């Protein structure tokens, strides 16, 4: 009995919160996706799968899914490799290890909104005295409108560097934890057998031992890529809406469901369900391929 009470005391509030703020809304939006739900969350007009059909033929939505699949193909390996490389370096050094670990992890504690504004307003603004443009100016180059220009699409440079800066530290810590769990005697045995320090031990000991960590990191990265919202919204969004390029699916759905001038929860929810299924599908596929 005592145990039971303690269980509910600790788990109860969290479980209730999860139920009320996560599972009920998920269920509700699933329900909404089958209704014509404009400016109401208690709709009465059942439309079956029409919202799904509309979203699956909606060119901007499909384009945003396409863009972000491409984005994932690009950003996932990049973050993975950089985080792993940094983790290997930090793991190697013998002095000030805690310092470097903290320095790389610190950006994770920074708010996405704050970082986005720093990137947009001070580093990559388009006027001649912006940081990036000042550096370009030293070499005599013309100022570049980083977040405006679409040819070449410089905004990707802004968004990708921002995302890397914000996320690398977190995955670095995951890899570090994984590295520190690899038993030292494996390396010693390999050296005795004549394996060279460096590539051979990395290839045949470190990477295989990091398999579970790698799978987790890949999954998290993939989900994060499709769920992109904050930095995109804050860097490229204006009071006139969001431009049609580099538009994450979530931002498109946000404007569909909550945009001023008409809330359309039916189509918004249908899009969210499609996106969820896509993420689940890709994740499962990735898990299957990697663990085989």
């Amino acid at each position: 009995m005592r145990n039971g009470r303690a269980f509910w005391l600790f788990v109860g509030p969290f479980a209730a919160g999860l139920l009320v703020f996560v599972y009920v809304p998920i269920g509700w939006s699933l329900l909404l996706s089958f209704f014509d739900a404009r400016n109401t969350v208690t709709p009465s007009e059942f439309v079956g799968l029409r919202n799904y059909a509309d979203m699956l033929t909606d060119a901007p939505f499909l384009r945003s899914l396409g863009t972000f699949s491409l984005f994932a193909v690009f950003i996932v390996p990049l973050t993975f490799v950089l985080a792993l490389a940094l983790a290997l370096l930090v793991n190697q050094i013998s002095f000030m290890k805690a310092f470097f670990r903290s320095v790389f992890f610190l950006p994770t504690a920074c708010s996405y909104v704050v970082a986005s504004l720093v990137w947009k307003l001070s580093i990559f603004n388009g006027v001649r005295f912006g940081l990036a443009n000042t550096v370009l100016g030293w070499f005599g180059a013309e100022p570049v409108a980083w977040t405006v220009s679409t040819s070449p699409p410089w905004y990707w440079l802004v968004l990708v560097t921002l995302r890397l800066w914000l996320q690398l530290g977190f995955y670095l810590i995951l890899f570090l934890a994984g590295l520190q769990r690899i038993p030292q005697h494996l390396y010693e045995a390999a050296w005795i057998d004549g394996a060279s320090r460096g590539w051979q031990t990395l290839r045949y000991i470190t990477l295989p031992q990091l398999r579970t960590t790698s799978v987790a990191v890949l999954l998290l990265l993939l989900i994060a890529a499709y769920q992109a919202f904050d930095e995109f919204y804050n860097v490229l969004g204006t009071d006139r809406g969001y431009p049609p390029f580099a538009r994450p699916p979530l931002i498109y759905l946000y404007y569909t469901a909550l945009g001023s001038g008409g809330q359309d929860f039916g189509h918004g929810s249908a899009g969210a369900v499609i996106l969820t299924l896509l993420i689940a599908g890709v994740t499962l596929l990735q898990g299957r391929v990697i663990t085989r």
Partner: protein
Amino acid sequence: MISRRRLLSLAGASALLAACGSNTGRGGSDQALKQWYHAYGEPGVQQAVERYAKSFTKTPVDVQWNPGDYDSKLATSLLSDGGPDVFESTPQISSVRAGQLVPLDDVFGDARGDFTESILATHTVDGKVYGVPQAVDMQMLFYRKSLFEKAGVQPPSTVDELIDASKRLTRDGVKGLFAGNDGGGGVLAGPALWSAGLDYVRDHQVGFDDPVAAQAIGKLRELYSSGSLLLGAVKDWAEPDAFTQGLVAMQWTGLWAVPAVQKALGDDFGVLPFPKLSADGRASVPVGAFGAMVNAKSKRIDEAKELVRFLWIERTDYQEDFNLSYGFHIPPRKSISEKASKLTTGAAADAVKFVRDNAKASNPPDWTSVMRTAFNDAVSRVVRDGASADTEVKAAAGKVRDELKRLYG
């Protein structure tokens, strides 16, 4: 069976959750009418509207000030029973169709004819008025007289002259024009249509399904690719900083910026409407006005209407104070705007004239978010990516037509 203790701990947990949920910052008693405003930037406005509300003696009024994304917050609150009784906004056909707004025709009384017709039109859906306009905002083109003289350029009266002026004024590290960090596709898309005598929607039909529309949008592309636009400024078009800091010779911004520009540049500036494209087109200025509206879910609709009537019909002194004492707006009532001394000279007097002669609704009630997204996407692709204006405009027109069909059958 659940023991009493267990029940107690569960109750404790739910009380905890309830405590989290109830702190909505609304405060006040249940007896008070709830009135919402978005957060005006000018100091003093909040105190002013609270003072107005306090002088309404029939029932107490709780004024809530809403910083941040007001539109989304308001739209969400209108779905539930927890929304305000009275709020400021512009009516959208979707909220009218969803029965969220109370028609206010009977609130106006004799004063109806005193409101500027084009402003009242932006609050009218299917023949009924849903908002009592509080303050008129408008956008226009600011230009620096001294830089024009130095370059020997005349203030532009056609779109081609505007593009030419922008190019010729781009020199010595100064750019010709700043029209938003998206390259003008956002704020100038409407004016571009109007410059060609077209519109977003006209009589429930697509207003821009016309080859001339592609030509008008194409002009924005020409402007963008001329290299004379300032792009990526620290503050966007709504703030006059790029103009007052001397980064540009012209900027598209609004009436609200006049005091700041005056302070920085004295009388070294003038204002213009967006010029016409050709003889068939018209110069234009986008106008919009927040209006006081009543929530149809309110349990005290009559009192709410009474409050709106008191604030914005009866107390003309409040409208005058609200429009002219803090920021810089045009009172929607002609009897007030005509006698306002602040609006009789300089740029402000020009602005009043533009609103009288060239006003176009910046956000008409039947321009829904689906239409806006389709149109803005098209314009952005033409202006920034150099996509074919013909194809893009036609595709957007198709989407707008579908949406209009859904709305009007």
